[in-house]
C-alpha cells in the first residue's frame, strides 16, 4: 500500500506545555506539503515528531500504513535539512554529502556524491572543507546530503530563514527544482507565506499547535476558512457588510470581508477617506488610510511621492478580486475591526489585527 506519510492526532508536549495539539495530516508520494505558521505555532515540533526526534505524547505517525511510533530516527528513512545546515564540520563537502551512503561501494558513493553536487550546482566542491562555504553553499550541501540516500521523505526545517533575501529567492528555486527532479515527498516548515506558496503542493496552516487549514495555495488564498487564517495569509483588514458597502462593495457580502494586500485600490470615483500616513515604496506609494467605521487599511498607488509630500484624503474603493468573504459565524468587534469567532477568546482573534 503506497500512501505516504500519515500523521494522526499527533500531540507533542514539553512538560506542561502542549506544542502540537492533535494534528492530522497526510503527505502523498511525490507531494510537497508546507507547514506554515508563526513562531511558536508548533510546526517545528510537529516536524521533529515526524522525524522521531521528539516523542509523541499522543496519536501516531505512519508510512504506507506502517506505524512508526516505536521506530528509531535512523530507521525511518526520513532525512532532515536544518535551518543552519548542521553540516559536520570535521568532514569535507563530499564527506558530508556521502554520509548517508555508508556501506555503499566507494565508486558508487563517489558517483552519487558527484551527481548530487551537480544537482545543487556545486560541481567540484567535493574536497573542500565545509567551514569555507558561504551560507547559501552550505545549505545546498545540506540539501544534497539529505537527498543522498534517496529518503522516503525529506523534512525541511526553515531551510532558508538564515539566508538573506536575494539568496533565499535563488535557493528557493534550487530547492523547488531539486524536489521536482527527484520526486521526493517533502514536509517543509516555514513561517514565510511566500516561501510556502512558492514551493508547496499543499499548505498546512498551524497556530498554537492546532492545524487550521490544509489546501493547495490557490484554494487557501481564495477560501481561507476563518479570519485567523486570512489574517496570517495577509488579509490584514476585516470589514462588516456596512463598511464594505460604504467602500463600494457590489451588493451585500454574505459575511465579513477580509481585505487582501490588493483589496483596496485608489479610484477617483471611490469613497474619500482620511490619510494617516504615506510611505514611499519601490515604484509607488503606500497610503495608510482610515476606513469608514474605524480600522486601518493600506492602499498602493503608482504615484511616486516622497516623505515631504502631504495628503489628507484619498478616494478608494474595494476591489472584490483582492478580497475574500469569510464564512459566516464571525462577529466583528467594531471597536477594533477585529473579527471574533463565537467560541474564541481575544488571544485567538488577535493575530488578525496584526
Amino acid at each position, binding site marked *: 500500500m503506497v500512501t505516504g506519510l500519515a500523521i494522526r492526532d499527533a500531540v507533542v508536549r*514539553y512538560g506542561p506545555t502542549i506544542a502540537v495539539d492533535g494534528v492530522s495530516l497526510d503527505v502523498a508520494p511525490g507531494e510537497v506539503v508546507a507547514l506554515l505558521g508563526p513562531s511558536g505555532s508548533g510546526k517545528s515540533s510537529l516536524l521533529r515528531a515526524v522525524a522521531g*526526534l*521528539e*516523542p509523541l505524547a499522543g496519536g501516531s505517525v505512519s508510512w504506507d500504513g506502517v506505524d512508526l511510533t*516505536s521506530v528509531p530516527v*535512523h530507521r525511518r528513512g526520513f532525512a532532515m535539512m536544518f535551518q543552519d545546515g548542521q553540516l559536520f564540520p570535521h568532514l569535507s563537502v563530499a564527506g558530508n554529502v556521502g554520509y548517508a551512503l555508508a556501506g555503499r561501494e566507494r565508486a558508487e558513493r563517489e558517483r552519487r556524491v558527484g551527481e548530487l553536487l551537480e544537482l545543487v550546482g556545486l560541481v567540484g566542491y567535493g574536497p573542500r572543507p565545509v567551514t569555507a562555504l558561504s551560507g547559501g553553499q552550505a545549505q545546498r550541501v545540506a540539501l544534497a546530503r539529505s537527498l543522498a540516500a534517496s529518503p522516503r521523505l525529506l523534512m525541511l526545517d526553515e531551510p532558508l530563514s538564515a539566508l538573506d533575501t536575494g539568496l533565499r529567492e535563488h535557493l528557493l528555486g534550487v530547492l523547488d527544482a531539486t524536489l521536482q527532479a527527484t520526486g521526493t515527498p517533502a514536509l517543509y516548515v516555514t513561517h514565510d507565506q511566500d516561501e510556502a506558496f512558492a514551493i508547496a503542493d499543499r499548505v498546512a496552516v498551524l497556530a498554537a499547535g492546532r492545524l487550521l487549514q490544509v489546501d493547495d495555495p490557490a484554494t487557501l488564498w481564495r477560501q481561507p476558512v476563518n479570519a485567523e487564517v486570512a489574517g496570517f495569509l495577509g488579509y490584514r483588514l476585516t470589514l462588516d457588510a456596512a463598511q464594505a458597502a460604504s467602500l463600494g462593495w457590489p451588493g451585500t457580502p454574505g459575511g465579513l470581508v477580509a481585505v487582501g494586500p490588493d483589496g483596496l485600490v485608489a479610484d477617483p470615483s471611490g469613497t474619500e477617506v482620511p490619510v494617516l500616513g504615506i510611505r514611499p515604496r519601490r515604484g509607488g506609494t503606500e497610503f495608510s488610510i482610515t476606513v469608514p467605521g474605524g480600522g486601518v487599511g493600506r492602499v498602493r498607488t503608482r504615484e511616486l511621492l516622497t516623505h515631504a509630500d502631504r495628503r489628507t484624503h484619498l478616494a478608494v474603493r474595494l476591489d472584490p478580486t483582492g478580497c475574500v468573504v469569510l464564512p459566516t459565524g464571525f462577529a466583528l468587534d467594531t471597536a477594533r475591526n477585529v473579527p471574533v469567532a463565537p467560541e474564541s477568546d481575544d488571544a485567538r482573534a488577535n493575530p488578525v489585527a496584526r
Partner: protein
Amino acid sequence: MTDPGLLTLPLDRIGNRPQFGPGGVGGRPVVWVLAAVLPVAFLAVFFAWPVSALVVRGFVDDGVFTLNGIRDVLAAPRTWRIVGQTLGQAVAGTAVAVLLGVPGAHLLYRRRFPGRRLLRAVVSVPFVLPTVVVGVAFQSLLATHGPLGFLGLQESFTAIVAALVFFNYSVVVRTVGALWSRLDPRAEDAARTLGAGRVRVLATVTLPALAPAIASAAALVFLFCASAFGVVLVLGGASYGTIETEIWYQTTQLLDLQAAAALSILQLVVVSATLIVAGATRARQERALRLSGNPSDAPLSRADAASAVLTAVVVLGLLVTPMASLVWRSFQTASGLGLSNYFALSGTGGQLTVSVWQSLANSLATAAVATATAVVLGLLVSYVLSRRPVTAQGRRSLRALDAVFMLPLGVSAVTVGFGFLITLNRPPFDLRSSWALIPIAQAMVALPLVVRTLLPTLRAIDPRLHEAAATLGAGPGRIVCTIDVPFALRGLGLALGFAFATSLGEFGATSFLARPDRPTLPVVIFRLIGRPGAENFGMAMAASVVLAVLTATVMGLAEWIGPKEVNPW
C-alpha cells in the same frame, strides 16, 4: 571550560526540551551507565577507598571509635596557625593572580601584535612545570647566596605567594582570555556610543560579562593554592607550612596518623566548599553570554600601554626570571660555568640509589602508563558527562558525577598517596610492592585535567548534529564513531599533553609511593635539594632544567596539535 562552542549552545536545547526521547538519538541511558562503570570503579578503589580509609583512621584508636584525635588536632594552636597560613597564602595567591591575570588576558586575547603566540606559549608553560622544579627555581633565585638573596625572601610568605602566582597566572589568563576573545565587542561599542568612557565601559559592561570566568578562575586558583605541596615544601622550609605539608609532616615524620587524618578532614572541608563555588560559577558561565562566533581582537594601541607594561613586567619579572635563574645556576660549577652538573646526572651523586637519567627513565615509563590510564578513563567520563539526559533526575546524577571526578583535583595528593599505602597492601588489592601504584596515583591526579580538556569539545557538539546524522540513517553506534569520536580527537592531543606533563611532574603522591630503588625524577630532585653541598645543588638545578624542558616540550607539542580554543578550566 570557556570553550566558545560550549558557550554558544542554544539554551533551549539544554533546558526543558527533551533531547533524547524513546526514539531519540545519542544512545540509551543504559550505554551511558556502562561507560561510567569503569571510571567510577577506578575512582572508588583508587581514590574514595584510600582517602576514606585514611579519614577513618582519624576516628579510631586501638579499634575503638574516638573523637580524641580530632579534638587534639583542633585544640592545637599549631593546627590553626597552619590553617591560617594555608588560607592566607591561598587568598593572597588568588588575589594577585587575578589582579595580574585579567590585564594579561586583555593583552594576550584581545589585542593583536607580533609575537603574541609566542607570548601565550611562554605564559602557559609555568602551569605544567613540576612543583618541585618551580620550588627549586625560586629557591635558586631567593636563596641568601642567590641573585635576589638581598631581598631576604628565603622561606618567606612572599616567596611562596610569588611561586603560587607563577603557577596560576596562566590559569587566569587563559580562562578569562578565552571568554574575553569571544565576547561580542558590539556590547562595548554600544556603551561607548551611549557616552561611556573607557573606564566606565570596563566597569559596567566588560567586567560584569567576564565575571563568571574570573570567578571560575579564582575558585580554581584558590583550590590549587590551598592544596599546593611541592612548592611549599621546598620554599617554606621549617618555618612555613600548609595543611598539605602538615599532613605529610605528621604522617612521614611524626607517624601520627590520627592527626594527619584530622587534617585531611579539614582539608576536605575547604576543598569541597571551593568546589561547590567553582561548580556554581562554571554552571553560570556555561549559560551563555552574548558571544561572537569568532575571536575578535584589535591592534595594540596607546590605550593599552598600562596593561602591556604590567604584563611585560609580570612575564619578565615573575615568569622568565626564575626559570632563567634556574638555567643559569644549572651551568654554575665550582670551576666557573660549565656542563659538569649535567654530566653528573649520569651518576648517583654518591648518595642517590639510581642515576638521575635512570630516574628520568622511570618517570617516563610511569608517566606513559598513567597517561594511557587517565586518557582512557577520561574519554569514558567525558562521554558520559557530555550526555544531556531528559529527566531532571538524570541531570542531577550527571552534575554529581561531574563534581565527583573533580575531587582529586583538590584532595591532597599526599592523602591519596598515604591512603594507597594503608589500603592497597592486602588482598584484594595487594599492590604495595607493585610499581603500578605510582602510575595509578598519577592517573588519579591527571584525570580531572583530562576530563576538563575533553569535555568542552564534546559538549560543543550541537545536539542537532546528532539529529542530522540520525535522520541520515546513522544508528547510535555510528553517531558516536562519526561525530563524537572525531570531535573528541580534536581535544585528545591537549588531553594527552596535560596528562603526561602532570604525571611527569607529580610529586605529592609519588613521594609516598616511589620505592627507594625506583624513584622518579621529581623525587630525586627533592632528595638532591635536601642534601648539603654545592654539587648536589648543581645537580638538582640541572635535573630541574631537564624536567622543565621535557614537560614544556610535551605541552608545546600538545598545544600545537590540540584545538586552539580549548582550555581545560
